[in-house]
């Protein structure tokens, strides 16, 4: 039995301990905002926060999560959109949108460690997240926008 918190609520999991967090979130808890893109920690679509830091949920087995706090896109803000989501909308980042929740989670993680990231910081942090529609230039702009807003 694995005990963890997801978006603030206590959960207990007694399924296959090897099940990746991604499928627990999506298929069992129904938090489908976290996406499946590769299953191999190659694309970032499945990014969530573990104790505030970005991780790839597709490659994090449940057995590693005892006592951890997981935040998904559904849990990043209790009242209205998060500053990063607002910046995303202001810059009109999404095309198909499928990668964007993972991108947003990664950006939140970046901004929490580096509130004023440089271009190089952004490249470093965000290059693990693929956007097949090619919205990278807007993602960079939105991160800067969010950084400004938080300042």
């Amino acid at each position, binding site marked *: 039995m694995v005990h963890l918190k997801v978006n603030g609520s206590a959960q207990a999991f007694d*399924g*296959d301990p090897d*099940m*990746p967090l991604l*499928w627990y979130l*999506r*298929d*069992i808890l*129904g*938090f*489908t*905002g*976290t*996406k*499946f*893109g*590769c*299953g*191999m920690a*190659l*694309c970032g*679509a499945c990014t969530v926060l573990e104790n505030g830091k970005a991780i790839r949920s597709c490659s994090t087995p449940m057995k590693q999560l005892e006592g951890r706090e997981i935040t*998904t*896109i*559904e849990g990043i803000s209790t009242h209205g*959109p998060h500053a990063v*989501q607002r910046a*995303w*909308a202001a810059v*009109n*980042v*999404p*095309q*198909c*949108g*499928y*990668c*964007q*929740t993972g991108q*947003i989670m990664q950006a939140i993680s970046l901004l929490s460690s580096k509130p004023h990231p440089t271009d190089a910081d*952004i*490249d*470093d942090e*965000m*290059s*693990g*997240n*693929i*956007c*097949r*529609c*090619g*919205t*990278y*230039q*807007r*993602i*960079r702009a939105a991160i800067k926008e969010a950084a400004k807003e938080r300042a």
Partner: protein
Amino acid sequence: MITLEKASEDFAVVNVTRRSFLQGALSASAFVLCVAKAPLLAKAAGNVAPGSVSPSIDATAFHPSIFLGIQPDGTVLIVAHRTEMGNGVRTSLPRIIADELDADWSRVKVIQGDGDERYGSQDTDGSHSVREFFDTLRETGATARLMLVRAAAQQWGVPEAQCEADPVHVVSHKASNRTIGYGELAALAAKQPVPKKEELKLKSPSEWRYIGKPAPGYDVTDVCAGKPLFGMDVRVDGMLYAAIAHPPVLGGKVKSVDDSATLKLKGVKQTIPIDPFTPPHHFQPLGGVAVIADNTWSAFKGRDALKIEWDNGAHVVYNSPDYKKQLQETARQPGKVVHTIGDPDAAFSKGGKLIEAEYYAPHLAHASMEPPVAVADVQGEKVTVWSPTQNPQGVQEEVAKKLGLKKENVTCHVTFLGGGFGRKSKPDYAVEAAVLSKTTGKPVKVVWSREDDIKFDYFHSVAAMYIKAAVDDKGMPKAWLQRSVFPPISSTFDKDAVYGSDGEMSLGWNVIPFDVPNFRSENGKAVNHVRIGWLRSVANIYHAFAVQSFANELAYAANRDPYDYLLALIGSGHVIDAKQPPDVAAKYPYDTARLRHVARLAADKANWGRKKSGNGWGMGIAVHRSFLTYVASVVEVEVDQSGAVRIPNVYTAVDAGIVANPEMVRSQFEGAAVFGTSIARTGEITATNGVIDQSNFHNYPVARMNDAPVQVDVQIVESSAPPAGVGEPGVPPFVPALCNAIYAATGKRVRELPLARNGFA
């Protein structure tokens, strides 16, 4: 399918207020107009003569598609019948109606249309959406506006001429200073006869409030909130999950299967064999063995535990290096003539300097961010499918065919697509879900892993091209011969097809936009060994790569600046015979002056010539017209000693005629440069003994933030020409512009894609 461009279908607007629609989305007293395809309308109208279609058609016998409803509270509902996959159709199409309606955009609600042939074509391919529906959508909005104005005039007892839809969402009578809202008018408007087309007054472009004005995506907030919008997110009560072990080689069959380890796994329910297809494969499932489980992970794990012996069939002979040689060999031999201008043979025989080159571009996979996925629920004779699909009517058709049902019994709910790029117009995965739902008696969600997606795609074709030109003493071509060879898309529908279709030839090959007096295009035979499909801009990718690279080679051979030379090749600009069907040629003449204009815009913005190329820095230019849109790309590169390529800037200029939403056009072209970067840098799918070698993003890499262009500038030409495609045309010129830039920077010519095969990273 790739067909020749066509002008739009015939539609008529009908008042259908008295029918109930859209499962309660519209209230009973809403005013509802629909648009229906004229032939269907005539059919529904029975003996009503064509041309005199009357709005009093028996609505109970006629279930039309709806585009527009106005609720008594003033909410305007508009159905988006095309698929949203990042192309912005859920924003652009409704805004065209809202503009002519003079509706307040903040009070417009967009509803996604199910699959239904009454919408006309819903196949969201070939960058058709705005271009084909522009006039129809405007007429729909204008029809509703006129009916609202007439309703107001009637209510007030004043002449219609004194009423106008002004400022927005209301009709006003200036003389008496009265206004009345659309919602209040809905009931009375619904009673007005539908005006004839001739009575409508469409706005002039200067009056447009939304068309041509930038607007963010309608769904941007929901998307960023992670709402369950995508096919991957669909959850239905009692749903089971399936993963399928597909035959590793196309056409392979299961010889034997041992599922004992699979069935022991927690969460796994059963395994189900899926029949192999009967050739041609078309949109049929590939066959194999499905593992049914109560969650996706268990289904994947169960599949890994299957022990299957395959009978691989005839396509085990497919080995990419050998196949490449065959294609190249074929490209060196005379092929089937596609188009001839002047007398190229005579011109070549006159001698002069001969320049020739061969180009090669490998298979590509779509790799849309959301892998194929579908949920199907078969209940007796009725099937409901939820699927990210570019082709909902195709889903209905294929599922019906496979299960032996009527097409009308299959409902296809279109979800958002996490990217499509052409892959999701093939409904094989939805058919798989339907087959499994029928067998289990439960709703089933089929989830393709990334490995399934890459290994079992409908691949973009591999192609070999050969071009030769005889040039005069100024280096200008007097004769030009070009040959392309690739396994055609038609092989998916006709197993014996070996030549490119007219459609594929029209994608950048039958003619070139250059003033060359003697010209011939040819096409050689190639047999397919994998499923071939269409990928964002299709054959334009390799054709533009060859033609625009060759033009650049000619420039250097003539010792001229590549941009000046390109303008000289295009000439002064005029309408050329591009072998378009007559109605298309009339509406969209191929005017090389427009190509010249975008080349100038892009080069000027890039400040072409500001710095001398070489020493690892360079700019490249390419132009291409596809999907009726004219595009120029200028790419700037920096290449270091190790061959690492950085792309600091891309300058794109686009002439797509009237643009519905410039913001969406800009994103599409920014994205196209990134898509092109993936193709150029690392895009390559290969096969060994019929098995695809790549499987996930580690061996089929796509562009990431740190290797994508840093800044993509998009200039949109203001135009009054009819709207043309925007989703695809950004891709073809980008790849040769990049390769030309690399040549400028390094002196190394890339004739075979991807760059990774040429010592660049």
